[in-house]
């Protein structure tokens, strides 16, 4: 009676072993996240480590976020200008660029860029430490590896994501102005007044809520994959780390886009 042995939760075993694995991974990820958040303020030592992580995740990503923001804004300005001028409504260029950037593109593209730039590095770093048994060494030295490795990254993500999203927004609005107004000749005053007039506090607040949620999702998934790379079945050692990194990036991107849909329908 294997079912009996598991107590009252035997019904969870009914859909099969794969479902059970998904379930335990889901629960593990969530507990991992709670642990990381709880340890974020564990002592003054966390502050210096968080600053180092902000440098890596935030400061070093400014250039790439600025470039992505600039080109996204420029493409948006160009496409919307062509689409709107067909109806003689190119006055709404500012509205289109501002709303699509602040509500959707800035938080999502920032999160996806940071997954590629910082998330993959986090998985690889923690993964290599795991397979070279450095995490076990930390545990033996009575240093909580969650506190030492994961919590500062979580704090740094929560600081960096909204700031980079704000940079992305401002640069993208400028990029939209560059193509829409300077290159294609939309009315400059109308562009900026529409940008300002169409954005409410709820749009900007929603954009930042999204970026905070994405920060949590990306950081949790990437660190969890690296931290548990040794439990990956069939792949051990360096191959396991590479597999973990790949799956962390893919999972993060999918989860970010899915969460974006859910947040959009909840927020507006």
């Amino acid at each position, binding site marked *: 009676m294997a079912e009996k042995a598991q107590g009252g939760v035997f019904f969870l075993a009914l859909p099969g072993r794969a479902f059970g694995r998904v379930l335990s991974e889901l629960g593990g990820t969530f507990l991992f996240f709670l642990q990381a958040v709880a340890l974020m303020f564990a002592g003054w030592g966390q502050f210096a480590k968080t*600053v180092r992580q902000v*440098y890596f995740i*935030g400061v070093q990503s400014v250039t790439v976020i600025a470039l992505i923001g600039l080109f996204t804004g420029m493409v948006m300005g160009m496409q919307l200008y062509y689409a709107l001028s067909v109806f003689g409504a190119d006055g709404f260029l500012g509205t289109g660029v501002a709303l699509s950037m602040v509500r959707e593109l800035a938080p999502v593209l920032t999160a996806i860029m940071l997954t590629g730039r910082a998330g993959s590095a986090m998985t690889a770093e923690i993964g290599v430490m795991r397979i070279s048994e450095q995490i076990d060494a930390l545990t033996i030295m009575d240093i909580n590896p969650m506190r030492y490795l994961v919590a500062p990254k979580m704090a740094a993500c929560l600081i960096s994501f909204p700031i980079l999203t704000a940079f992305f927004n401002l640069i993208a609005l400028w990029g939209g102005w560059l193509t829409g107004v300077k290159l294609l000749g939309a009315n400059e005053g109308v562009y900026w007044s529409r940008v300002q007039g169409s954005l409410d*506090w709820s749009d*900007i607040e929603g954009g930042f809520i999204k970026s905070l949620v994405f920060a949590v999702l990306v950081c949790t998934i990437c660190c969890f994959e690296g931290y548990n790379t040794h439990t990956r079945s069939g792949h051990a050692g360096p191959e396991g780390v590479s597999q973990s990194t790949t799956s962390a990036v893919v999972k993060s991107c999918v989860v970010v886009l899915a969460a974006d849909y859910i947040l959009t329908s909840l927020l507006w």
Partner: protein
Amino acid sequence: MFKLNKETAVGLFVLVGLIAITYMSIKLGNVQLFTDRYYSVHANFSDISGLKINAPVQMYGVDIGYVKTISLDQDKGMASVTMMIDRQVRLTDDAIVGVKTSGLIGDKFLKIAPGGLGDPIEDGGSIFDTNPAIDLEDLISKFAFGKV
């Protein structure tokens, strides 16, 4: 030569980031930090179809305030609107306020035609003379059925 160390770079990043976030919130999000720049004026309309909260209030085409609240006054059978008007703008109680349409898409705004001889309106005062929104369908049907 001055070399930017990690801590300074992070400090700069967070500082500039906070400035960007504040700028976005206040300037682009139209958050009114200093609401005492405005005083409130009420007006009742028989029809305000399409008027939205935060729609501009204009005089001679210049923005002088915004629509704060829109509510229904069932006792009078009127739509009750509260406007916030810039303190620098003086209004008298013989002013006329109307619902107008801007552009092809039809954003509604309020236009105040100032009076001249009435008493000045204080904070919380009212404008009594109002013009309702023009209903285009209504006009067309009047024209089509020859009631003009």
